[in-house]
């Protein structure tokens, strides 16, 4: 088989590609909401917060997805509580808890469980070592998040556009907002196996942020982000295979490059349009 099809004849590459295919709809639907609602920092923070859970999961014999869900959920609840402290602000609360989670994870990994080189895998993912259990967990998480999106997508859009008025339009915006935060947490946990605790933004933020630069509707943003997530995911896999680099990092590099190209192209197009006008 010719390159680039050939590497995908290997079972571990097929499983990795399937994982990307399962994550791509989340990158589109949830990624669009993350970018439109300015929740990128929260997304990154929830990803990082799963780190201590993943460190404990192996030695304790707990499924990693369950441990990540428990820690990520605790983080989201703690953030909700701390964010309400007067004078603190949600971004400060996010940063405080993020540092705390990362520090606890490092202490657990280095001094309690002696995770050694496994820390790299937890932080940056192990897409090439994805097993059937992880694929099943991603499938379940994706279906749950997409079901929530099907139910609340219109409310998310109306609330994001005009948060104060959504209740007056008969929309239950508060519940929808809480569900969006929970859906992002579940999407993050689904993506952690593939790209690690530190690089979840490569899947859930970068494609949508790039698509946002040149799309003019929410549907176009979602579909373009799905396409970019697939292209960057599969491209990153090939890069990782050929150059023997971690796949999570390769996907993040491709995502960053795609964003830089799109940002430059749209800026140049904007200037050309101004000159013509």
């Amino acid at each position, binding site marked *: 088989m010719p390159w680039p099809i050939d590497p995908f004849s290997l079972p571990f590459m097929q499983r990795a590609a399937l994982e990307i295919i399962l994550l791509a709809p989340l990158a589109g639907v949830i990624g669009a909401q993350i970018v*439109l609602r300015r929740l990128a920092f929260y997304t990154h923070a929830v990803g990082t917060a799963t780190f201590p859970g993943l460190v404990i999961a192996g030695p304790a014999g707990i499924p990693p997805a369950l441990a990540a869900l428990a820690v990520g959920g605790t983080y989201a609840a703690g953030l909700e509580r701390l964010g309400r402290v007067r004078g603190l602000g949600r971004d400060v609360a996010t940063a405080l808890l993020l540092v705390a989670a990362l520090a606890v994870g490092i202490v657990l990994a280095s001094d309690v469980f002696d995770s050694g080189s496994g820390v790299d895998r937890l932080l940056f993912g192990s897409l090439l070592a994805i097993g059937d259990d992880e694929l099943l967990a991603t499938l379940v998480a994706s279906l749950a998040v997409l079901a929530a999106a*099907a*139910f*609340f997508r*219109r*409310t998310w*859009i*109306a609330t*994001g*556009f*005009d948060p*104060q*008025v959504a*209740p*007056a*339009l*008969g*929309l239950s915006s508060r519940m929808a907002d809480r569900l969006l935060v929970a859906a992002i947490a579940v999407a993050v946990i689904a993506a952690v196996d593939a790209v690690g605790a530190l690089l979840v933004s490569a899947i859930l933020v970068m494609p949508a942020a790039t698509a*946002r630069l040149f*799309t*003019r*509707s*929410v549907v*176009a*943003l979602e579909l373009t982000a799905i396409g970019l997530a697939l292209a960057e995911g599969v491209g990153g896999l090939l890069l990782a295979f050929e150059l023997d680099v971690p796949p999570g990092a390769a996907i993040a590099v491709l995502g960053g490059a795609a964003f830089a190209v799109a940002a430059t192209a749209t800026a140049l197009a904007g200037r050309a349009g101004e000159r013509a006008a």
Partner: protein
Amino acid sequence: MTALVTTSGLRGGYGPRSDAISEIDIHVDAGQIVAVLGPNGGGKTSLFRALLGELPRRSGAVEIEGRVAYVPQTERARLDFPVSALDVAAMGTYADAPWYRRLPLASRRRAHESLELVGLEGEAGTLFGELSGGQRQRVLIARALAREARVLLLDEPLGGLDRASASRVGRVLADLKETGRAILVATHDINDAQEADRVLCINRRQIAYGPPSVLDAETLERTYGGEMITLPGGGKAVVVQHHHH
């Protein structure tokens, strides 16, 4: 005449100690425009919240016929959001549409008709952020119309608009009045208030309610306290606003 909004002794607020509004007794018929006049922080928005059922009510009664819709100032909406004028108008129908399927044809038709009512059918596909301030205000009115509201609450709809845009929005409100809706308009402008059918003056409590003739110097002074000055010559009252940032 059918009364669409009736309040008696309405009192409410968020904090435990002070009332945001009190002693509000109004009666608004179908086809009436009511100007709600008062200083910043005087309770105009709180009154709207009370009519929407969002402000905790401590005493009194509110009776409303049909749906109520709130039209905020345009700067409250996200101008960078990738939504067209039609998308925004259609948001008024979201609560009625089944979640599991595409927006029904009837809902989309309602959104189109609402845009037509505010004279913006030709801009249906234009991004909200690319419209002028007056057009954006009309799109937000269209969203309220798509909600099939009989009572419209508009928060300073003419604020920040140039004279031509303000006049266009004013004509839209006059047209809507003819369709039998009750329209409450929060405003700072005493001249605009004099064009309304009724005027409600509030400063945390009701100062006066009645035809525009209630707007005498004494009522305005009680409404605005030391914030009112009178220009020499024309005798027009101008309100000096303290903006809180």
